[in-house]
């Protein structure tokens, strides 16, 4: 039985410079605390935090005025970094533990600057997708920069060093839904049709990112927790733009094994559980399936005999599957919480967003423009006991 399931409020990714889901704004900190959650997850967009390559602005100057550009205001560069710093410090001062996820990649780091809008479109969408609907350039993996000395490694070093003072009360999640959002997922097509499936490559990139984080963390004595994986839980066939987590998890573990990934208890496997909640899936849920995929293989938290998984994003989005109305939304979240409290290996339960959002309508509260009051799901989430 999973003891002491952690409850985590996952704020929205537009959290910079005083945006609606910024912890410093709108009484959001108090609203998180009122749910009884001990964990809050916030986002830092790498592409907005580090506006220029280190050759132009050294890593040591990211929090200075040298890291600034016209038009960004508090939404980029050193002011954005300070906004994130302040949110982390505020949460910690209130006794909350913090998960910070680094999201997206700067275009100067991933080779997309100066490329035409439809560049590599076969890795970013279907043959008929409008250019504006392709995966964004900021989602392209910085291939060749994932090592400890590469741009990605240096960015992770900077993050670990910056927040290491918070120790085990701080978790850095180093990727977000790599099996769905990042590109490329596969190598070149074997035929003249560039949209034909090629060999899986996302597993290698994920494993390299994890191994880079491990080396950096190890060199510093593993000062903080590191979240890895973060896979979307969607089923369906693998394609050039998405990889089923049932492919992604074991293949990534294969790659980690090939790299000789050692026992690293501070590394936590993370997973998103929208489908479990919205479909009211019975056991074995997709979260539990992930635990089983890790069993015998994962060398991070819990080890191979008792692998642990933190669910770091999820909820019941209105209009998706069984989430037909607010009452049902709350029921689904409660049902999943009850299921996860007895699921071996599951140690965290999230709810994505503080406020309602038309497309990811899992928020705990109505929009601020509608007064920001609690929705039934907020009452349900608040009622869950959580001591850690």
């Amino acid at each position, binding site marked *: 039985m999973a003891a002491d399931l952690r409850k985590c409020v996952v704020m929205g990714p537009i959290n910079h410079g005083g945006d609606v889901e910024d912890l410093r704004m709108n009484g959001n900190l108090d609203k998180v605390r009122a749910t009884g959650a001990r964990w809050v997850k916030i986002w830092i967009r790498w592409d907005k935090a580090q506006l220029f390559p280190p050759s132009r602005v050294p890593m040591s100057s990211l929090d200075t005025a040298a890291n600034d550009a016209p038009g960004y205001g508090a939404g980029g560069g050193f002011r954005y970094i300070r906004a994130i710093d302040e949110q982390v410090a505020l949460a910690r001062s209130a006794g909350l533990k913090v998960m910070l996820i680094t999201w997206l990649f700067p275009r100067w780091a991933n080779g997309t600057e100066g490329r035409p809008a439809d560049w590599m479109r076969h890795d970013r969408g279907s043959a008929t997708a409008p250019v*504006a609907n392709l995966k964004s350039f900021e989602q392209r993996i910085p291939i060749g920069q994932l090592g400890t000395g590469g741009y990605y490694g240096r960015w992770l070093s900077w993050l670990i060093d910056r927040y290491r003072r918070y120790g085990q009360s701080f978790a850095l999640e180093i990727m977000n*839904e790599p099996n769905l959002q990042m590109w490329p997922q596969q190598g070149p097509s074997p035929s003249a049709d560039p949209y034909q499936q090629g060999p899986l490559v996302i597993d290698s990139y994920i494993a390299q990112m994890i191994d880079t984080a491990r080396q950096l963390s190890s060199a510093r004595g593993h000062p903080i927790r590191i979240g890895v994986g973060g896979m979307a839980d969607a089923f369906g066939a693998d394609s050039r733009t998405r990889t089923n987590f049932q492919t992604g998890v074991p293949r990534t573990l294969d790659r980690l094994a090939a790299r000789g990934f050692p026992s690293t208890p501070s590394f936590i496997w993370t997973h998103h559980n929208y489908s479990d909640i919205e479909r009211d899936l019975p056991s074995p849920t997709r979260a539990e399936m992930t635990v089983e995929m890790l069993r015998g293989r994962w060398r991070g938290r819990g080890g191979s005999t008792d692998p642990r998984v933190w669910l770091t994003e999820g909820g019941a989005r*209105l*209009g998706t599957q069984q989430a*037909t109305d607010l009452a049902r939304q709350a029921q689904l979240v409660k049902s999943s919480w009850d299921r996860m409290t007895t699921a071996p290996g599951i140690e965290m339960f999230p709810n994505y967003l503080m406020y309602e959002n*038309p497309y990811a309508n899992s928020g705990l509260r109505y*929009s601020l*423009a509608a007064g*920001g009051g609690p929705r039934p799901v907020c009452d349900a989430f608040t009622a869950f006991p959580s001591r850690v």
Partner: protein
Amino acid sequence: MAQVSRRKFIQSSALAAGLAGLPLGTPVAGAAKSGGLSPARRRTFTALVATVAEANGTRFDAAYLRQAADGFDGWYAGAPRETRELVERTLDGVEGNGSQRFSGMSRRRRLAALHGWRHGRSRHAQGLAYDAVTLAGSPFGPPPFANASTMDL
């Protein structure tokens, strides 16, 4: 994060290819179908998308805006009541929040209006600006706000 549902509604929307060439903002057949957006709300949505797209540096044309509105319209028609209400509150709020109708403004003035709400002292207006940009991010594909949120309103 919510990527699947956003993509789904874009990809599953029947795009009205025959509508290409209509002037921007013209109510189109289908917009008035039962359960769909009213022509006025559709105009507001289209104006909002154009504003965000331009601010974001996204390439678009009138045909694309119509396709985006059609996709949104189809999604809205099938959305739960609570989501529809959020959409309606947002579009009606945007249209009527200033001294001038939002859809009647130039794009430059629309962007200035959104910027003013976002940075103003009114919590209602701040929330409205956030909801508006979120709503307008819908056509721009995965993940949520990957493109729209690069705009610093």
